[in-house]
Structure formats: C-alpha cells, structure tokens
C-alpha cells in the first residue's frame, strides 16, 4: 500500500512560491504523469514527495501515513533526477548497485538486477565506466537504471527520457510500461513529452504556476480540458482558439469570429445556455481541422512537413489556425483551400475566465490503475 496523497501542499523558496497549494491523490499502483510548463513546480513537487524539501505548508501522506517530517531515506522511494546526479566517483555499475547495497540486498540479487537493468537500458558495455566518460543519453539511462533496480514504495521520475532519441524513447517507454505492469509500484512521472504523457499514465496531472489545473485519465483530459490553459498546453501543435461574440439566433447559437460565423453544434447548446452576448472562445485541435471541399475558405501560409504528419498554417481572416494533415496531402504555400472543424471535438471557453463551458466533471471517469482500457499498459 503506497498511495500518495498531497493536500494543500505549499513550498516557498525565499520569495518564490514554487508549489502553491497542490492537492493530488495518487492511488496505489497507479502511474501518474505530471506535466506543465517549465518552472511550474513539477520538480519541486517530486522533491517534496521524496522528502528532499520540507513542505512549507500542507501534508504529504504515503501509504496512509503523514510523512511530512520523515526524511528521504525513511520514505523508501527511488528517484530519477532531472540532472541525473550520478555519483561521479563511482562506476556505472557501482552507481546502480548502491541503492540496493544500501538496503542490504543479497549480492546475487543485486548482480541479477543490475545485469537485467543494464540489458534493458542497453548499457551493458558501459558498466565499468565513470559517468564522465558517458554521453548525455547514457548518463540518463544510468540514472534511470539506478532507480529501476530498486523495489521501492514509490518511483519518482523527473523527465527520465528527455535526452534519448525517439527510437530509444519508444523502447524505454515500453520497458517502463512493462516494468510498471510487473511491479505495480506507484509511480509519479514528470515529462514534457506529449506521447509519454498520453501513453504511460493512468492519470495525468496538469500543473501551472504551482497549482494543479486538472487531473484525470490522459485521454479524458486531452479530450475534455477543464480550461483554456489545459487545452492549450496539451497537444502539439496546440489547440486553435478563435474568440468571438456568442449570439442566439432562432434557437441556434452562432459565434461571430470575424471572417466567419461559426454555428455551434446542437450537442453544445445546453452548455452554452445563458452565454449569449458574451465573449466566448472556440477551441479546435489542429487534427480536428480537416481539408474538406466546401468548408471555411482559408489560405495556406506555411506547409511544415514533420515526417509522419504535415502541419499547415492557415490564414482565416486575420487569425492563423493550424491543421495537422497527412504528409501525403498535396498543398503548397499560398494555395487556397477550405477546411471544416470536426463537430464533435470542438470546445467552448468563457473568454473571461478561460473555463471550459462544455466541461462537466460528471463525465470524468475514476482513475483505475489496473484498467489498461483507458490508457497506457500497452506496449508502444
């Protein structure tokens, strides 16, 4: 039993409030991904859970016990540091062994686990080297290896794959997934990688400026952002926002976004009830902007091939919107095309508060760490 519960957690450094009242339930055996812009307090939150910083306020519970006053080594956690923090004077192998030796693990088990981890991380040949003789990605893998050889109550991983190439990342992601399936260790994982966030987590927590903006299963959060910040933050390229005046006309809702008037699909009418006359923001993800013969006419500004997809930058009046299309689509700069927004995947936000108007927390599924149906668990 090692669920982690953060309640109104606050951490101040002198005049900086790094974590500003974070409450978060991390169920036992779950895989929680923490995302958020740079400097929003992710690392600090992990360090609070690890016991490396002392909370200014609020409580941290691990396994039902308040651990605010427990030191890191009393908490049985393993952590991958964002900056690796390898022991410079120990070889790769010694770095990986150390945590186990610390727990008095049997020599055979240590050797086995280290060998396994080294193989998994593809660093078998490097075991005798010192950290200073490794490449960045190799160091990062050692840092990861140092954590995964252990069998702690909680894994804390701070961007553990950020310095790996895409291919290796995919492999490592799969390995982490497998590992989590096997060990079922409660894991808190910080990443800035969209795919990792979507595929690894049972739940995703989006942070901003020291506060949690939304928590939930990744796909749910992606599809049902609670506010503009979350909508904007998740997804790359990020969601297109088009602001306008909402007008009720004949039982129809019309949003006047300048060049065109957008007709709100019927399913959203309830949510928008009472907002006519207000400023409302329409949000559409680039992948929900599709080229369709008789849609909204736009001009192609830029064609950006990104390999498996191509991103189009389109001029819609004075606004610029992005569309993510198949790489094969034959468009060029300055082409005039027409697009359509997927009617089922649009979002409406209060322009003043940024709150999503069509969000209802009732839709929110409970996080079930064992269910692989929602997300994760699969081998990428």
């Amino acid at each position, binding site marked *: 039993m090692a669920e982690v519960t953060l309640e109104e957690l606050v951490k101040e450094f002198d005049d900086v409030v790094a974590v500003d009242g974070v409450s978060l339930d991390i169920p036992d055996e779950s895989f929680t991904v923490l995302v958020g812009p740079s400097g929003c307090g992710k690392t600090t939150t992990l360090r609070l859970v690890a016991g490396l910083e002392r909370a200014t306020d609020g409580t941290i519970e691990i396994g039902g016990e308040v651990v605010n006053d427990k*030191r890191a*080594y*009393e908490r049985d956690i393993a952590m991958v540091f964002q900056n690796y923090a390898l022991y410079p004077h120990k070889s790769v192998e010694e770095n990986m062994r150390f945590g186990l030796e610390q*727990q*008095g693990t049997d020599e055979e088990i240590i050797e086995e686990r280290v060998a396994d981890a080294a193989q998994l991380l593809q660093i078998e040949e490097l075991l005798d080297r010192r950290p*200073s003789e490794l490449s960045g990605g190799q160091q990062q893998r050692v840092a990861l290896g140092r954590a995964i050889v252990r069998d702690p109550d909680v894994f804390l991983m701070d961007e553990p794959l950020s310095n790996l190439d895409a291919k290796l990342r995919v492999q490592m992601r799969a390995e982490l997934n497998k590992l989590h399936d096997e060990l079922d260790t409660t894991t808190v994982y910080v990443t800035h990688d969209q795919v990792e966030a979507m595929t690894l987590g049972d739940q995703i927590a989006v942070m901003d400026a020291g506060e949690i903006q939304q928590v939930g299963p990744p796909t749910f959060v992606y599809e049902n952002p609670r506010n503009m910040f979350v909508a904007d933050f998740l997804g790359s390229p990020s969601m297109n926002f088009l602001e306008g005046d909402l007008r009720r006309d004949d039982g129809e809702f019309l949003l006047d976004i300048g060049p065109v008037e957008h007709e709100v699909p019927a399913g959203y009418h309830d949510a928008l009830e009472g907002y006519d006359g207000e400023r409302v923001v329409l949000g559409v993800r680039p992948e929900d902007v599709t080229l369709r013969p008789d849609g909204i006419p736009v001009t192609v500004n830029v064609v950006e091939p990104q390999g498996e997809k191509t991103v189009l930058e389109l001029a819609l009046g004075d606004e610029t919107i992005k569309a993510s299309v198949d790489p094969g689509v034959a468009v060029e700069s300055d082409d005039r095309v027409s697009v359509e927004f997927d009617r089922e995947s649009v979002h409406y936000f209060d322009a003043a508060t940024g709150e999503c108007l069509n969000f209802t927390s009732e839709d929110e599924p409970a996080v079930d760490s064992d269910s692989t149906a929602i997300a994760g668990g699969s081998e990428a």
Partner: protein
Amino acid sequence: MTESQHSLRRRLDKLFVPLTVGPTLLWIAGIIVYPTAKLLWSSLFFTNPITGAKEFVGLRNFRRLLLGDGGSLLNPNFVSFTWHTIVYVGFSVSISFLLGLGVALLLNKDLKGRGWLRTAVIVPWILPYVMSGLMWRWMFQAQYGAINGVLMQTGLIGNKIAFLSDGTLAMMALIIADVWVFTPFIIIILLAGLQNVPEQLYDAAEVDGASRWSRFWNVTYPFLKPSILVALTIRIIFDIRALDLVWVMTQGGPGTETEVWASWLYRTAQVFNKPGEGAALGVVMLAVTFGIVAVLYKIFGETPYES
C-alpha cells in the same frame, strides 16, 4: 531491515548534528576554556620577575605594551616589532601564496610523474622547523654559507655578505626560509581545492572565448576561494605567531632587528619572566589576528555553490 534497525537509524540520524559536532566542541571547550581564561586573566596582573609577587594592575600591561612607560607617544618597541611583524608576515605570506598558487596550478595538470613532483615539492614542510631553520642559518652563514658561495662563484658579488648581521638582510633571510618551509602548505591546500572545480565549466568558458587569465578568474578562482581563504588564514595565523624559525635563525637579532611579536612574546613571558605583559601581547595578537581573518572572510568567504 527490521523495525528496530529502522528506529535506530532514525534516532542516530536525529542525533547527527550533536554527534558530529559534539565531540569537537567538547574537545575544544574542555581543553581551551582554562588556558584562554588564564591568558585573559593573567594579562591583568603584573608579576615581579624577581620575587614572583603578583599584583593586579588592570589594564596597565596593555597601556605599557602600546604606549610604553612615558616619554614617547607609543612604545617604540611595540612600533618597531610590529613593523618587523608586518614585514615578515606580509612578505612571507604573499610570496609563498603566489608561489604556491603557481606551483599548485602546474601540479594540477595531468603530468607524468606528477606524483613524485608533488612529493618533492612537499618535502621542505616535512623537515622539522628547527632543522630547516638551522639549515638556512647554515645557508646564509657569512663565511661558509652556500648562498655566499654561489654568489661569489658566479661572480654576482665581490665580497661576502653577512646576511644575518644586518637587520634588513636578516629579515630577508627569515622570509626566504619561511617561504621555503611553508609554500608546500599553500600548495597542498590549493591543490585539494582545485579538485572542486567542475571541468565542464572550463569548456563553457573556452567556448565563451575566455582567455587563460579570464578562465582563471571566472572559473578557477570562484571555486578556489574557500581554499584560498583557508590557506591564507592559516598561513597568516601561523606566521604571526611563528617562533621556531626566528628563534633558531636569529633569535630576533642582530640586536632586536628581527624581533617579531612571537619572539617578543616568548621573550617577555618566558625569558624575562613577565607573564602578565606577555599575556597582554598575546591578547593583542589575538585581536589583530581576528581582525585580519575577518577581513579575509569578507573577501573570500563566499562559496561557489551557495545561493
């Protein structure tokens, strides 16, 4: 690990600070309180060197030490011995620091045989000071000393120089001996400090186009600061009260031309049998040393990783 082991670890950890600092504090306090109190206390007394009679005189010892008995504004001995001390300490410390820094930087390079070089460089410090002092007395000996020998044989001088018979030259000889003996100390402290400089910062500085000098100031120096502080402070503390070399080489002579605070204190307290006046000088030395260290702390006190 069992629960009891856990709680033992926990309890031991709670006691980390007292257990690590405690013994040191006890040790120092246990053995320092008495001598220090004694020093301060006895600086308030006058002991008749003949009869041994003790008399409480308040701050008279200090007044005498600084102002002398009358006549002159300041005690001329105090003025001149202070000057000797400043010259001795000032030159010895700065020369040996610069020399030591240079050698430490050279020895920090990845040179083949640097192990032996390091040992070779440390050796002067390993010799008993008395031996070093005598050795230098022999080196500076006017008739048969090697220095005169070398200078004569290379034709640099025509007549032998009586180094230890002339106040200025004797002081110079003392400084040379002092530098010779204590430079290894600087080398060792700085060499250890140099290990703390993260190598990658040199890369960053090179890419930033920093010259060798600038790399020293912007990368080496900030990380070396704590060691410089240690090296200079200890060096100065040592030198202000250094007695061995002076006593062996010149005994403060010729006359009192190389008398420094340390030898004066020794002479007053031990030879003249005036412990009170000696203690007063000791207190003054303590205060001055403290002041110098405070200044050094101001200059070099900041450490690189501190925020």
